[in-house]
């Protein structure tokens, strides 16, 4: 035991070790990415299965249909008349209808301010009290008046009403059923759920006059399509990349596919041959959505409160009619109604790559962790390296025979004040963009962004210049190394923590920031220019622009989206971008441009000696 210890300590001194880290971290990144691409293979992904036995999906016969179609048509007439009316008018019209079903109704007002706009409206909701039930548990049926694309939910709302009327006839409900009709798909549900859990700000969101028990699940109907549909699209991403319990998705897939013969699509993959490319595409889309962490439907705001929810959206051109859709919802509600306990059996962290294949966190987490690890490794390596004597400071003892001992036995003092100061400064600077982009009104966003980009490109230059030409003590490269080491350390730490919360976000950020760990202080002017170019290519702003261009929107709307998400749903992606990635980037820039001409590289000439 002591032997091993000593030998390990000896190895630490071995010069060959010190050359490894860059390669190791590169390897980490490569393996991480390769890992990701292995996942869709059959060997690494698993078939989905239902682990909560109580759900019994598709075990019940569904009776919705028949003359309910007539009722549905009637309700649809009512809804169509309301198209274009104001939110309150709509509610005034709908409330008596719901009351007529023998339900208790209530309304809720909410107002949000984001990006200079005010998002206000009035939620209408009704509670179907479970016969023989006690107000201990509830399931929610959400029908937003407008979906995320601001199309009117022409079929969804009548369908929801008809379903509630049908549900009222059953006596088997063990949980209350709440019908929630919101003016839009993001703010409305968010306001309602917040108020339901008393996590709302009374000044903006009024509290609920009528309540039921614990919410056990929610299903949102987004049914704008007028023609008959072919299959159902399940939208399951929650705010900040949180996901509903896999059992919920599985049972809906099971009900739709197994019972009704309706196909199921995920992540807008309208056609999915169960092959590698499609799987990969599904997975990547899922990861991108997760990474952005925006609300993707009326269900999204339920998930942060541990209420499993999905949005069902019929699509395609087929022969399925509204009643079929209704039966899917009925089946799902019957399954949820069977639940004895809150959904807890199955996975909450997973990547779906096809409706029946997934990978769980244990399998995919390593890739993100590896990417995060590369920063840490580099940071430690730099730290150790700065422990070595800088060039010239190393003692040249002519008489010495075994050089290894000399070089390794000497240590150099690290002066930490300046590097720490710089890193802290940059970190604190990051508050500014975060605040600006989240609170500026939409009109000013564009100009603001341009200005910021300009500053952003200049900032590293200025900082590095300042640092190199400090009047008292000009910064040594070895201090630059320390700066880099600290910022990378922070980055690695943040990302590995984030990976457990929002895997995709961590991975994406990690990949985008990966160049930072390889940028060395460069001496030649050409090198500097090249480095600067590369640096700006991977700067947050540049990536933002690129992304906007790729999706054919402009930066402003992207920023506005982000601001709204931040204000309404509390999405924390902006924080990650501005307070984790951006500082690391700036620090990297400073380091790259900080190298003084003529200073040979630290690691380099030790080899010459050896």
């Amino acid at each position: 035991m002591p032997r091993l210890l000593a030998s390990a300590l000896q190895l630490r001194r071995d010069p060959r070790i010190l050359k490894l880290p860059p390669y190791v971290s590169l390897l980490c990144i490569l393996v991480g990415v390769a890992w990701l691409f292995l996942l869709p293979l059959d060997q690494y992904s698993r078939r989905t299965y239902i682990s909560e036995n109580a759900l019994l999906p598709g075990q019940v016969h569904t009776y919705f249909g028949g003359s309910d179609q007539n009722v549905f048509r009637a309700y649809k007439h009512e809804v169509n008349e309301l198209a274009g009316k104001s939110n309150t008018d709509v509610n005034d019209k709908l409330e008596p209808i719901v009351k007529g079903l023998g339900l208790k109704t209530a309304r809720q007002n909410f107002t949000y301010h984001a990006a200079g706009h005010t998002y206000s409206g009035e939620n209408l909701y009704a509670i179907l009290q479970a016969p023989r039930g006690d107000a201990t548990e509830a399931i929610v049926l959400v029908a937003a008046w407008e979906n995320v694309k601001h199309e009117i939910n022409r079929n969804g709302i009548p369908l929801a009403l008809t379903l509630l009327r049908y549900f009222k006839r059953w006596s088997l409900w063990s949980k209350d059923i709440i019908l929630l009709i919101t003016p839009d798909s993001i703010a409305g549900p968010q306001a309602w759920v917040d108020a339901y859990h008393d996590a709302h700000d009374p000044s903006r969101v009024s509290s609920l006059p009528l309540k039921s028990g614990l919410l056990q699940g929610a299903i949102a109907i987004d049914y704008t399509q007028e023609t008959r549909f072919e299959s159902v699209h399940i939208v399951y991403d929650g705010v900040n990349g949180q996901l509903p319990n896999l059992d919920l998705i599985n049972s809906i897939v099971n009900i739709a596919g197994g019972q009704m013969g309706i196909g199921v699509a995920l992540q807008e993959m309208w056609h999915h041959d169960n092959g590698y490319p499609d799987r990969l595409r599904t997975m990547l889309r899922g990861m991108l959505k997760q990474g952005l962490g925006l609300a993707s439907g009326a269900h999204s705001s339920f998930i942060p409160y541990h209420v499993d929810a999905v949005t069902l959206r019929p699509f395609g051109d087929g022969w399925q009619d509204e009643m079929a859709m209704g039966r899917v919802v009925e089946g799902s509600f019957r399954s949820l109604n069977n639940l004895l306990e809150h959904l807890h059996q199955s996975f909450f962290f997973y990547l779906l790559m096809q409706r029946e294949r997934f990978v769980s966190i244990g399998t995919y987490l390593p890739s993100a962790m590896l990417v995060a690890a590369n920063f840490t490794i580099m940071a430690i390596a730099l730290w150790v390296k700065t422990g070595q004597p800088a060039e010239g400071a190393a003692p040249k003892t002519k008489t010495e025979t075994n050089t290894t001992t000399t070089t390794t036995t000497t240590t150099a003092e690290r002066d930490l004040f300046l590097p720490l100061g710089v890193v802290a400064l940059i970190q604190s600077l990051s508050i500014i963009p975060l605040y600006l982009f989240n609170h500026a009104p939409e009109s000013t966003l564009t100009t603001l962004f341009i200005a910021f980009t300009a500053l952003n490109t200049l900032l590293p230059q200025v900082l590095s210049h300042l640092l190199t030409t400090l009047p008292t003590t000009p910064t040594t490269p070895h201090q630059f190394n320390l700066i880099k080491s600290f910022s990378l350390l922070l980055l690695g730490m943040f990302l590995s923590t984030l990976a457990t919360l929002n895997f995709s976000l961590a991975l994406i950020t990690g990949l985008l920031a990966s160049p930072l760990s390889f940028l060395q202080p460069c001496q030649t002017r050409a090198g500097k220019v090249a480095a600067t170019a590369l640096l700006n290519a991977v700067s947050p702003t540049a990536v933002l622009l690129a992304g906007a261009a790729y999706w054919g929107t402009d930066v402003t709307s992207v920023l506005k989206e982000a601001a709204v998400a931040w204000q309404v749903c509390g999405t924390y992606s902006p924080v990650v971008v501005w307070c984790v990635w951006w500082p690391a980037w700036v620090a990297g820039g400073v380091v790259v441009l900080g190298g003084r001409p003529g200073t040979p590289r630290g690691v380099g000439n030790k080899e010459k000696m050896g």
Partner: protein
Amino acid sequence: MRQFLSLLWLSLFSFSIFASAADYHEQLNLRPLPLSSLLASFNFRSNTTLDDFDKGNFRFFPRSLAQILQHAGTRELHLRFSLGRWDAETWGARPWDGAREGGTGVELWAWLEADTDEEADHKWLTLTNALSGLFCASLNFIDGTRTTRPVMSFQPEGDHSTVTNMHLLYGVLPHEVVCTENLTPFLKLLPCKGKAGIATLLDGHKLFDASWQSMAIDIRPICPPGGECVLQIEQTIDMVLDIDRSKRPRDNPIPRPPPGDQLPCDTSKPYNSHDTCFPADHTNQEWTLSQIFGKTVKGTCPLADSTIPPVCIQVPDSRSVFVSKDVHEKKNPDGLSRCFDIAPSTELEMMLPRLDEGASTTTDIVTPETPLLYAERSFTGHGQERGGVQTILRNPSPDTAVEFIYMESLPWFMRIYLHTMEARVAGHSHANKSLIQQVYYRPALDRARATQLEVRMRVPPASTVFLTYDFEKSILRYTEYPPDANRGFDVAAAVITILDPQPETIGSHGGGAAKSARRFAAYTLRTTSLLCSLPTPDFSMPYNVIIFTSTAIALTFGGMFNILVRRFVAADEGPEAGLAVVLGRLKGRLRGMLKR
């Protein structure tokens, strides 16, 4: 409503005063409610003289129950099985002024005769165990952690002038699911079983398909002035049936959508057509007893007091009720209810015809009377660590304030912060100190005693009051979690006893005592029960946890021990080490192998 009650009370008092006149009495009251539901309240009352009770001769009084009472020294007993919730907004005030109902699940309170608290607890234990055997309910789970001793909320209904050392114990099982197996023993207690009289209507399927139902057993000694003391058992079943649901035939209970042409449509709509129909539900509709209950009343119980009509219904006189022949009808003077006398061996069938269109909905049913108070309780906050409870109390009356006692018995793992308890009138931001008049608080002991909270407060007229308090969720031991830990833990309903504004002087004995109890509680209501989710561990973990922790401890110990006992020397003084050495050693070993 009042008339309905007055009728009931009249019969009750008349009975309790002339207790010796009739020994058994039963009555069924039907009351149509808005939104096509029907309240049916069955009431059976029988009694035995205390002398017979002590001698053990039982004629009407159930022997099995009497034995339990004697064995557990119980003077007065109240047992409730309830399911569902009373929809006060739609159905108005509760039957019997809420005196005959309990919170969801099973509720039991009793006055035991005991010298010390320990003795009382012991008797209580025997009582609950025996009752659980009798009623096939898991009453034996009412242990110390679910038992409280209310001080303000309850008063004995019977006459206990002779007894001094009585202990009131109160236990409740919110999670108990009341079902058919509880009804069968309930019926067995009746002198005529389910075989004759109104009890023939009682049938598990119908009863437990009701939207709200409550079975009650009340046993109290009553000493009518002059007459000898009797022990009275009163069994009550109240249920609200959804007429649409109940009219569905037994053999085909599935609510298939009706054929399009049978759908009641709102023809006034412009788009109304053969395939488009705006539903016109919940119009007044016709029903018959056999449709609702699946059978008719088979004669009367021969033991029952023939002077009291067995069946009454609360509909305005304007509405006509058809009954089978040789059943004769007695209209009440108030014009809002009528009763029917049945010959011992005739079957009673009753039919309420649909009102012709045009008749306003107000005339088809007696409009329910608004209750004295609306109460709604719900959790606030989210997360596994702490939460809050908020009770919304609304006083509908425009001019009179309501004074009541709000009682909670919370499980021990909900640790309430009493200092956070406050009551505020809706519209005001700050708490109003004057609302809470008196607080009785008995803190919980972990795993031993439940929290008991009784608050005497008042709600000013035409105002809503929020009563809120916070609590902390404690973590249970690994073995204390039930099998369905992730469902959450039920919290019993809060009991709200509205005090009578002008309490009468309590009569020393007889019906006076019974009256006085009534007077004490003008109205009783219970909130719904709650589901409190506690932090639940992953139950596959314990061994891993043990092993991990012990490994960690062991390693730290090893490190510390080494540092303490090792001697540190310079590397070149210590034994050879380093990469070269390791390699060299390996080489040597390999060579040795090759040599061999």
